């Protein structure tokens, strides 16, 4: 009897801390395998820069998933943000404007996503899949399918490459976003209402919450964060690829799912998402150091994503 009891409590703590444990195990394993290259301050700073872009876009996905919806257009929104921003820079517009105007555009696009989902009560899955295709078309119209790289002013790359001492500006921006949105989700009316809507939309309506408005806000913020990510990608590499954001789509949702397993309630949360990004980022970093072929990295990452979804389901269970 005592045995079964401690088994149960072990199972519980495994559910709560399993993900953090996994992160620790990954770090330990890589440190043992590549002690000189992996477990160094320099590499961890490097990792923080590598995951910074994914973290920002994943925070957007976290917001949308907190209201129990999906935004499949995060990838193409990011690509569009990068392209528009780069094209404006090429056209010689003042740089601050090049980074601010796309944000407004993305805000409107995200708002439209949210409005369609809330107003017509259609599946966000399909709506944003459609929007994603529309955005890809717009990108093609703007660029003709070619990467924007010629005549980009030097200042354009400042945001993506500047370092404060040893620390990349990108990492600092990431930390600021984490602090800001973690605070919003935990301590503001907005965050609480988003979680309420995600928990039960009808109850939220009866409780007097303007569900449609908050859905619009969630989708709009998600689009803005995607757009910012896209612009930072473009700034980092000094060019805007038409599909630069595509690769971020799946891994951002993977990070959110992994993040859910960190929370006791099994719900999306910003710090959990950070843990998710860290796990995926460190894996990529370490496996590359081990000279693992890319396809193996895909297999491992994909397996982890599926595992995380299962864990999230298990953690959420027991509601009866």
């Amino acid at each position, binding site marked *: 009897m005592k045995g079964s*009891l401690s088994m*149960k409590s072990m199972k519980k703590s495994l559910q709560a801390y399993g993900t953090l444990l996994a992160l620790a195990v990954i770090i330990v394993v890589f440190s043992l395998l590549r002690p000189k290259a992996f477990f160094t301050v320099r590499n961890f700073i490097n990792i923080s820069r590598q995951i910074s872009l994914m973290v920002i876009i994943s925070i957007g996905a976290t917001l949308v998933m907190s209201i129990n919806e999906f935004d499949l257009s995060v990838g193409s929104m990011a690509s569009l943000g990068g392209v528009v921003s780069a094209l404006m820079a090429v056209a010689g517009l003042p740089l601050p404007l090049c980074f601010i105007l796309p944000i407004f555009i993305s805000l409107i696009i995200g708002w439209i996503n949210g409005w369609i989902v809330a107003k017509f009560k259609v599946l966000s899955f399909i709506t944003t899949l459609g929007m994603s295709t529309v955005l890809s078309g717009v990108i093609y119209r703007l660029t003709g399918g070619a990467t924007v790289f010629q005549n980009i002013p030097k200042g354009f790359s400042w945001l993506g490459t500047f370092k404060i001492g040893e620390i990349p500006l990108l990492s600092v921006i990431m930390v600021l976003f984490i602090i800001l949105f973690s605070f919003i989700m935990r*301590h*503001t*009316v*907005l965050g*609480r*209402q988003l*979680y*309420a809507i995600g*928990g*039960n939309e*009808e*109850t*939220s*309506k*009866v*409780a*007097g*919450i*303007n569900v449609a408005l908050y859905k619009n806000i969630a989708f709009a913020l998600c689009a803005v964060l995607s757009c910012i990510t896209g612009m930072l990608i473009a700034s980092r590499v000094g060019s805007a690829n038409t599909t630069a954001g595509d690769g971020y789509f799946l891994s951002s949702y993977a990070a959110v799912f992994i993040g859910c397993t960190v929370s006791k*309630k*099994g*719900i999306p949360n910003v710090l959990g998402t950070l843990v998710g990004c860290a796990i995926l980022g460190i894996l990529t970093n370490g496996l590359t150091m081990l000279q693992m072929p890319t396809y193996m990295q895909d297999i491992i990452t994909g397996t982890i994503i599926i595992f995380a979804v299962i864990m999230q389901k298990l953690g*959420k269970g027991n*509601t009866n």
Partner: protein
Amino acid sequence: MLLQTKHLSKQFNGIYALRDINFSLEAGEIHGLVGENGAGKSTLIKILTGVYSLEEGEIYWNGAPVKIHTPVESRRVGINVIHQDRVLVPTFTGIENAYLGLPYPTVGWHVNWKEMQRRVQSVAQELGLDLDLNKTAMEMSPPQRTCVEIIRAMVNECKLLILDEPTASLTDKESEILFSLIRKLKAKGTSILYVTHRMDEIFRLTDRITIFKNGEMVETVQTTATDKDDLITKMTDNWTAETQSVDRQMGEELLSVSHLQSRDGIVKDVSFSVHAGEILGIFGLGGSGRTETLECLYGYRSMQGGTVKLFGKPASGLTPSKSIRNGVALISEDRRGKAMIGNLSIRENVSLSCLCRFAKKGVIINKQEKSSVAEMLERLQVKRASDEQRSIELSGGNQQKVVFAKALMTHPRVFLCDEPTQAVDIMTRAEIHRLLREQASQGCAVVFVSSDLKEVMEIADRIQILSGGKTRELLENSGITSQQVLSCCYH
């Protein structure tokens, strides 16, 4: 003896939900199972139906030990359960639903629909049920769905049918249909385990009654050898009869409705008014538009015509948030669907409607929120491990208290209560009645909707009859009989 349990126990996290149950059930009897919420009734049902695995004790079926590990095994033995929340596939027809989980009859490679139809129809006829089984479940009324579930059980050679609060969402007339069906099943030799909070049903239907208290079995008694008070004393540790306050002082008119119509056409012509200090009972049969009327008044459902006056002033363009600001609260009938967020903590649920009060520039001041919520929970005596516990983990009665706490946080002056004591234990029920009476005496107006006529007659000052989406007679609740009220409902 059809079913017997010996020293059956079940624990969760080291706490016994059931302890040493020696329960027996005869073939062909209707056996009542009573006890407050948390007494262990549902745990027993879940063990018998294979939802929970059996860890301690034994189950005997027709004298031989059986092992029930899964719901499928339970059905194979001959045990079927009908829950208070009906579980049918909405888009399937009655016939397809009756075959849920059963192997379909086939001809060669494809399903033999005709044979399926024939078998289901013959079961329906045997039970004397006259309903169109080619309709989909979502087109059916709640009692029709219950019938489909019973047919489903009987298609499967059911020897023991467990009914868990089967009349919770049925009106009295619909319940009558169910009762006659239950008697037919008994005549066919099927045993019934009948679980309910409703005493009158227990006494009307059952042969024997088993009482559970705090996870233990108190005793099994012959129905003829006991009465309501006796049962209640056995179920609860302390119980005092509800006292009816005598002095009713009606104040000004707080809410008045005239010729209300809903856009979906369910509410056709509703007019009534409630005064400060008054509890107005609204009673009607299923489909009479009780829930819909309240939802319209609250602004949750769209209105099409009619006027609503609040505190003497016309109110238009109603939305839930406007209603809350106006001092109107809705206690929804559908607790899990519309009144509570199971995965959020108790605190987050209670403060949901009045978050802005605890916020400065959109940032929630945790201390203020926590202390206000804790104070309210204390006032309503919600039994909980902590305020941060997920609300779904509470018992039904305490969940309902959380719903009331949330409403009270907005300081309402008009309460719209839709079945506020549904599936709630007797103690909580009395507490809710007391709370509403207390609010009324402090100058609030309460609209109280219940499908339990006895309850309405217990608490209401006046009873407004609702039928077919229209308001009918308005009765003073003094010296009237239930027959008088019911006769107003059937036109």
